[in-house]
């Protein structure tokens, strides 16, 4: 029970400190889940994000379910997910009920423009950390660059990139190595 409460409040904190989409959640996950609690590794976070791209639902929720499920089973998955949406429920309900022009307030606009700069730097740091463990050789560097440039320039669903990367990974690791051993 204590662990479930810990799971709930950790994810509530992460949800409450995420500004933007699921990617903005990554720095918080690294701090709270990887560094502080050791519930998952950076590698596992990358796996969850890759799978979260190809499975139904928004990434933030998918990742919370994954980590909760890994820590405390099915109940853990449910509790972590409820935790991550809890702050939104409270904050949005209050704003929707009482503050009709919230997004137009000058103080909100200014604060959020500042926060956005910080979110950029936080995600940048998170990417560098992930890159250190995911980019190990020429093949992985190639995949990283192709996906980065491709998703910036082309209007292709991320699912396509994820699927191709998995195939390239299998080709490079299993098939080529096998061929090399036979030769």
């Amino acid at each position, binding site marked *: 029970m204590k662990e479930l409460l810990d799971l709930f409040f950790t994810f509530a904190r992460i949800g409450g400190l995420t500004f933007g989409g*699921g990617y*903005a959640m990554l720095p918080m996950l690294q701090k709270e889940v990887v560094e502080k609690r050791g519930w998952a590794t950076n590698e596992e976070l990358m796996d969850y994000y890759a799978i979260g791209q190809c499975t139904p639902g928004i990434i933030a929720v998918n990742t919370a379910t994954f980590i909760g499920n890994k820590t405390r089973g099915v109940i853990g998955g449910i509790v972590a997910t*409820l935790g991550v949406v809890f702050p939104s429920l409270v904050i949005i309900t209050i*704003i929707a009920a009482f503050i009709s022009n919230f997004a137009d307030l000058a103080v909100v606009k200014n604060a959020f423009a*500042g926060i956005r700069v910080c979110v950029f730097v936080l995600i940048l740091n998170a990417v560098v950390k992930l890159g250190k463990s995911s980019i190990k050789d020429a093949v992985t560097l190639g995949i990283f660059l192709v996906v980065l440039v491709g998703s910036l320039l082309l209007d292709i669903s991320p699912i396509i990139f994820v699927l191709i990367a998995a195939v390239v990974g299998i080709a490079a690791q299993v098939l080529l190595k096998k061929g090399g051993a036979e030769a």
Partner: protein
Amino acid sequence: MIYLRLFFEFAKAGLFAIGGGLATLPFLQDISLRTAWYTSDQLADMIAVSECTPGPIGVNMSTYTGFTVGGVLGAVVATLGLIFPSIIVIIIVAKILKAFQDNKYVKAAFYGLRPASTGLIAAACLGVAQIALFNTGALESLKTAVSGIRYPALILAVVLWLLMNLGTFKRLKGNKVLAKISKLHPVVFLAASAIVGIIFKFGA
């Protein structure tokens, strides 16, 4: 029964919206057209509020729409609807993964997936940089890209980066103050950036 319908409409969005929170947007537009629960002007407000409040955008939008349609209970029901398919699907996927985690093909697939995942996050990061550091539409040509840089935001970004990373540099590792600063919780940097944004009117 409006709550039951809310639950199913949002469960549908949760089931078919694949990817980030903004992937739910087309579904919210579709719901608005079919049900007349809210207008497209209201939807624009909901997106604006969802983007400048804490919490993942997709969750914020479903809570806001749910509240507009059915009050506090509507907000809860819509959000539960949104997360319901995720919970089921992810728990099943996690079970399958666990069964095959030592399979060499699965391992090799993840060897390829991880740099792809990093690349997608890096692209999202540049997307945030574009909004945070440049004026709207500045990146359409090289000329406007240079003149469209928001220098105060750029300076803040550089200062934040230095504060977060100086303590990890080899030469400066002995410095206890820098090391402490670089280990601060992200929320400290977020709060400081919000204050800087308010003082220097970043949103203007």
